[in-house]
């Protein structure tokens, strides 16, 4: 296809660089500098896609972010992108785009049958039907869902990379039009740190679409010079293709920078970068978006925004039609008529809703020989697949109806303008308010919660001179408030002004019949929301603007109502008989300003970098040993070490037996370790732990339980007294950080008088725990300065010395019930010592074991695991641990023991369970019932907290929390599991070496 609609001259495109692309499989050509939209227009494409609900043919209506219609699916495969606005896709070689939401093609779409039933489908129709039969909705929904959505999601993982950046500045300027550039210049000249961003690939905003002069040079020269000056300023950052998508509390902004186009394999370049900007001041120079007029069948391909038509001509050198009608309520659209004329496109007429358009621009239009039809409106647009003609009639006196005879004007383009809406989105994101300015017919920013200001067109100041002035003032002021007061002697640039006359506000233009009866007055083009829908919502009582929005889905599409919202609210106001649309208000503007990929939000935190893997010093040894890992918080801990051909149970059995019959070795480095020092350390421990600490001897260890104030168990661990005022506390792996936080909180906020310092030493030490009958023999090969005999180093004792020549602390503490030694060495020696122990231990049958075996062994002894036996609802008494509760002192949580619920006799208690069939293994998390029965619901008396097969016992066993459990010892209880119910006997929660002889051995 040739570029039939390409103008011979003009535009910022490079005619020497043709770019090939395909649209719906058709090969086409555009030029470097085109957007997909301008290239489609150049190629004479009118129908780009179909609308959401009625599947009406839709063309291109805008030239920028406000485009609601022209959405395409870009590319296929892993890099495909859904719902891309053709107006924002920069053309690149090989681009391939397809229409969405239509089948088989946008020109002939089977679902357009929907528009036949449109009368049955007013706003909210689905709330009123599909209710019978009761089970029917399932099927209706199935069908409705098939129609859902616009484009298609990729189905392959995203091959691209995304990036984050965190920066700080004094002045952030959003928007690089006349206002923003001026503000950045003024702020930059003070030496302040400035960031200037614009979403487009070119700076200049509206200036790019007009032919203004500034300081007697062309606007484009002025922009060039300004950017050149900015680039010389060391602390100024200028980012193009960068959208400020959100503005948050405390002057925090999110920017999305697009860095590679879709086809390039970014290589080392990330596709998009999300900038986090903390600024001292923010200047919002985000411009204004033109709003369409709302008239009958204003969705036909060929109905466009007047400014967009101008943009296509000036910036891209394409003509969106051959014969145009301008439809306006203001002067600005006359510029489009003049531009069309200059580009040798016929202008059939300018239809102006105002009675006497006599400003300078209308005068110019008349001079150019263009017919102006005043006090008139379009009552209908003919041409289902594209504008063929319009019907024009005069407005009656009240402007709520038409009069006279209709005149048909042949045309293929309608350029409509209903005025301009300041872009106050960012201002609103961060809690700023908006107020309606009746005179200008716009919402503008009022109070802000941030150090920010809207300027230029974003503040409703549409004259270029004002924008420049305001930009300079605001830039300077912002810098000054941020502490940069250096004055610049440079003058504010001067631009010529055309004074424009006020617009005439008629929100929904009347037609020959009432709205809704003939034609459709579209407000939200993407969601097919019409003025009739809004009126219906008002009629039915969905009268709050927020109700109307949700009932009709006005403004809820990907464009978020950039063109439709304000007219929609005004139509609602009218329907409610409210004069001032400000009284109806706007719906809430929310981030993002334009859609942002999930990938950009996630940034680099994907794949292997999703979250840190914390590694112990021996991590890579375990990995070589092909262990299976267990995730515990961010740590990886060896779960078990299967040998070739071993099942998990085989491996665990082998490990369990070795630990009890030979020697087992466990990497316990992940346990939290806190160094506690100070004259009040013992008193501090007395308050934190439930038991007493004052009398613990130096070199001795003691087990402690920590509660929260509600009396529930929070953490446990062994604390050792290292010196007079010096303790080493250990915590569970997952609670290491929270326990340190807990200690600091009490010390700093409640007991600042206590002289205690706490420091984490978790990472300073590698902890190797060896246990079993051969443990002592093995260890004694490694030390000659620590007497390992039971008398010298008894259970719950600690000695410092060397192990394998490394300075070490050896603790006689045991979580397995075996005689065990916990060896702490400086972390960087952990791997060396581990390796040596493995070599020397071979003759003793040394076996590395993981967390699973550790859990089995401790459960055989009835030792609890915080977070497994406990769940935040368990008190020490529930575990039969009354012995650890000091009666002589207060401690955190103690008071809660006397609350009525703590005193309940039927509280759950820790017990053992032995399945009657020793080969039945209960499910952890299994629920316990007192009687067998198939009825549901059935009362539950507790649950299984831990359950294993024990190779040492030769049978299965479990721990459980059971209501009144201690009283039930000897009883039978039942655990219903999938398929069968397992009968168990309740026992005491200890299954192995209940005298503790091995422990002390």
């Amino acid at each position, binding site marked *: 296809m040739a570029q039939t609609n390409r103008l011979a001259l003009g535009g910022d495109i490079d005619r020497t660089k043709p770019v090939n692309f395909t649209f719906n499989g058709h090969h086409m050509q555009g030029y470097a500098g085109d957007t997909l939209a301008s290239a489609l227009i150049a190629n004479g494409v009118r129908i780009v896609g179909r609308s959401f609900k009625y599947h009406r043919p839709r063309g291109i209506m805008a030239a920028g972010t406000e485009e609601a219609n022209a959405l395409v699916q870009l590319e296929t495969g892993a890099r495909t992108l859904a719902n891309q606005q053709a107006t924002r896709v920069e053309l690149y070689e090989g681009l391939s785009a397809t229409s969405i939401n239509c089948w088989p093609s946008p020109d002939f779409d089977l679902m357009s049958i929907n528009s036949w039933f449109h009368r049955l489908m007013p706003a909210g129709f689905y709330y009123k039907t599909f209710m019978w039969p009761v089970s029917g909705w399932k099927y209706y929904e199935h069908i409705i869902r098939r129609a859902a959505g616009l484009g298609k999601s990729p189905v392959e993982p995203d091959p691209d990379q995304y990036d984050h950046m965190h920066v700080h500045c004094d002045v952030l300027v959003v928007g690089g039009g006349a206002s923003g550039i001026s503000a950045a210049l003024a702020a930059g000249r003070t030496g302040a740190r400035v960031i200037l961003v614009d979403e487009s690939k070119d700076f200049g905003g509206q200036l790019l679409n007009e032919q203004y002069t500034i300081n007697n040079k062309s606007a484009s020269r002025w922009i060039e010079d300004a950017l050149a000056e900015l680039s010389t300023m060391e602390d100024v950052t200028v980012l193009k293709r960068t959208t400020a998508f959100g503005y948050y*509390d405390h002057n925090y902004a999110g920017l999305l920078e697009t860095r590679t186009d879709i086809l390039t394999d970014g290589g080392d370049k990330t596709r998009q970068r999300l900038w986090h900007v903390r600024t001292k001041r923010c200047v919002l120079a985000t411009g204004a978006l033109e709003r369409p007029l709302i008239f009958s069948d204003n969705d036909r391909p060929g109905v466009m925004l007047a400014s967009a038509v101008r943009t296509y001509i000036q910036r891209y050198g394409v003509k969106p039609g051959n014969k145009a009608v301008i439809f306006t309520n203001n002067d600005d659209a006359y510029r489009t008529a003049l531009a069309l004329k200059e580009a040798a496109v016929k202008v059939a007429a300018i239809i102006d809703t105002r009675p006497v358009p006599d400003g300078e621009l209308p005068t110019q239009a008349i001079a150019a020989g263009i017919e102006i039809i005043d006090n008139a409106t379009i009552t209908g647009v003919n041409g289902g697949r594209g504008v063929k003609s319009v019907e024009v009639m005069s407005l009656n006196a009240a402007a709520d109806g038409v009069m006279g005879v209709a005149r048909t004007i042949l045309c293929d383009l309608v350029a409509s303008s209903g005025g301009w809406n300041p872009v106050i989105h960012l201002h609103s994101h961060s809690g700023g308010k908006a107020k309606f300015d009746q005179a200008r017919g716009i919402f503008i920013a009022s109070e802000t919660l941030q150090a920010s200001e809207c300027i230029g067109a974003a503040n409703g100041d549409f004259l270029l001179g004002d924008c420049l002035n305001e930009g300079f003032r605001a830039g300077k002021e912002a810098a000054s408030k941020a502490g940069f007061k250096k004055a610049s002697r440079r003058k504010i640039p001067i631009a010529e002004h055309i004074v424009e006359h006020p617009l005439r506000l008629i929100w929904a233009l009347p037609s020959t019949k009432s709205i809704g009866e003939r034609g459709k007055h579209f407000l939200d083009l993407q969601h097919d929301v019409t003025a009739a829908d809004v009126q219906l919502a008002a009629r039915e009582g969905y009268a709050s603007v927020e109700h109307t929005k949700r009932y009709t889905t006005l403004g809820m599409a990907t464009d978020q109502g950039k063109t439709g919202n304000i007219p929609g609210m005004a139509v609602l106001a009218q329907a409610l008989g409210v004069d001032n649309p400000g009284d109806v208000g706007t719906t809430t503007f929310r981030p993002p300003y334009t859609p942002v990929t999930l990938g950009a939000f996630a940034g680099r935190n994907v794949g292997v970098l999703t979250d840190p893997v914390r590694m112990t010093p021996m991590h890579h040894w375990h990995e070589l040993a092909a262990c299976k890992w267990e995730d515990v918080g961010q740590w990886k801990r060896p779960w078990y070490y299967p040998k070739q051909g071993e099942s998990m149970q085989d491996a665990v059995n082998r490990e369990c037996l070795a630990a009890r019959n030979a020697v087992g070795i466990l990497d316990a480095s992940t346990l939290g370790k806190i160094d506690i020092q100070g004259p009040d350390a013992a008193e501090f421990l007395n308050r934190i732990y439930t038991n007493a600490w004052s009398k613990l001897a130096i070199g001795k260890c003691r087990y402690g339980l920590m509660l929260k104030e509600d009396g529930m168990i929070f953490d446990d661990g062994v604390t050792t007294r290292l010196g007079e005022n010096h303790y080493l506390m250990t915590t569970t792996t997952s609670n290491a950080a929270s326990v340190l936080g807990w200690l600091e909180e009490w010390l700093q906020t409640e007991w600042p008088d206590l002289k205690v310092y706490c420091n984490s030493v978790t990472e300073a030490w590698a902890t190797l725990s060896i246990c079993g009958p051969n443990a002592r023999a093995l260890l004694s090969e490694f030390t000659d300065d620590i007497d390992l005999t039971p008398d010298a180093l008894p259970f719950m004792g600690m000695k410092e010395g060397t192990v394998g020549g490394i300075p070490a602390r050896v603790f006689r503490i045991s979580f397995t019930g075996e005689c065990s030694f916990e060896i702490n060495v400086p972390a960087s020696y952990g791997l060396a010592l581990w390796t040596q122990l493995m070599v020397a231990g071979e003759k003793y049958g040394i076996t590395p074991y993981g967390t699973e075996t550790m859990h089995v062994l401790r459960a055989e002894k009835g030792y609890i695991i915080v977070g497994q036996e406990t769940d935040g609802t368990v008190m020490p008494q529930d575990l039969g641990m009354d012995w650890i509760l000091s009666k002589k002192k207060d401690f955190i949580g103690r008071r809660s023991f006397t609350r009525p619920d703590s005193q309940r006799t039927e509280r759950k208690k820790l017990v053992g369970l032995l399945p009657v069939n020793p080969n039945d293994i209960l499910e952890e998390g299994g629920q316990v019932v007192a009687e067998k029965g198939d009825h549901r619901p059935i009362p539950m008396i507790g649950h299984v907290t831990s359950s294993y097969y024990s190779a040492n016992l030769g049978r299965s066993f479990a721990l459980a929390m059971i209501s009144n459990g201690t009283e039930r010892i000897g009883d039978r209880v039942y655990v219903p599991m999938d398929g069968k119910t397992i009968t168990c006997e309740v026992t005491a929660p200890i299954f192995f070496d209940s005298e503790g002889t091995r422990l002390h051995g």
Partner: protein
Amino acid sequence: MKKYSIFSLARNALNFHQDWEKAWRSPEPKKNYDAIIIGGGGHGLATAYYLAKEHGITNVAVIEKGWLGGGNTGRNTTIIRSNYLWDESARMYEKSLQLYEGLSQDLNYNIMLSQRGVLNLAHNLHDIRELKRRVNAIKLNGIDSEFLTPEQIKSIVPMINISPAIRYPVLGASIQRRGGVARHDAVAWGYARAADARGVDIIQQCEVTGIIRDGGRVTGVNTTRGVINAPKVAIVTAGHSSVLAAMADVRLPISSFPLQAMVTEPVKPILNSVVMSNAVHCYISQSDKGELVLGAGIDGYNSYTQRGSLHIVEEQLAAVCLLFPIFSRLRIMRKWGGIVDTCPDASPIVSKTHVDGLYINGGWGTGGFKGTPASGWTFAHTIARDEPHALNAPFNLDRFTSGSLIDEHGAAAVAH
């Protein structure tokens, strides 16, 4: 109330839909009511509806400071399920689910309940143990619940990444097949319309500024539209529970936090169930319109701003990208925040207070949308009879004094 049906639609189409009656009236507040419900969210409206329907108390005003349904009801991710751990919770939420199952017909308003199944993923051994505990408890309580292997998960959610090599692999999941989603606005609107039809006055744009007491008894409320009297006043203001309770010197164990949610651009159906994960925090479903509805984690500080922090959203979307790397190129179209009122035990309060005639319903936190029908149903009972129903008796305010908390943290972390 004129009945909605396909026939009424057809009839009205003939007349260009000019003749639909208002879904609810907008009456001027009367001087006196038998009961005042403060808060026109789903819970408040449901309370009013059941007061009228179940207890014949129709001289009721629902007073809403903004637009009805505009609080958390209008901004939640609409997940409905009843698979709660403790008996008390399971009973309450199951009652709710059962009411939901007949709600479209009961209200004659299609709330689009879509029982597409809710999955809770397990990413570590601890998760598995906790999920199994829950699945077992729920089943024995007579509620549907199953445990799924990764392969079974994949067959239901084909787009999920179950590779064991990812940072937090999917090791299993629980599923409640009767769980799902519903149109949140329709729930509020349906209750409003049905309550209004039974005579309840729904008064919007009217803020309660004080609770009037005489001795230890409530007598009415001050509002921005004057004093309104009633011997019974019920607070159902979710995020604002503490603010309202303070007006009657009632202290609550509640803190209000921002909770955010967001939607992507609409795409053709690609996700047919609701997927939730606590360990890598995210929850996700696809609406009937095609957008993915995603919920973030709670912000860690008290706030009434209905805005949350960006980094919370980033963490949550990184989690989505971990589980669904194919969604990375989809775009977030809108994100917003609500104000959730959280209790220390992650369970709600549906209770009398120490002030006679004053009732409180709140603390539903991040998970009260699913509770809406049962909350209203039991609360109406409590207000009408001045004593709780067996279902909500455990959810009293006194439990914080007695210690009989219903701690849903242990198993659920965040309960949506």
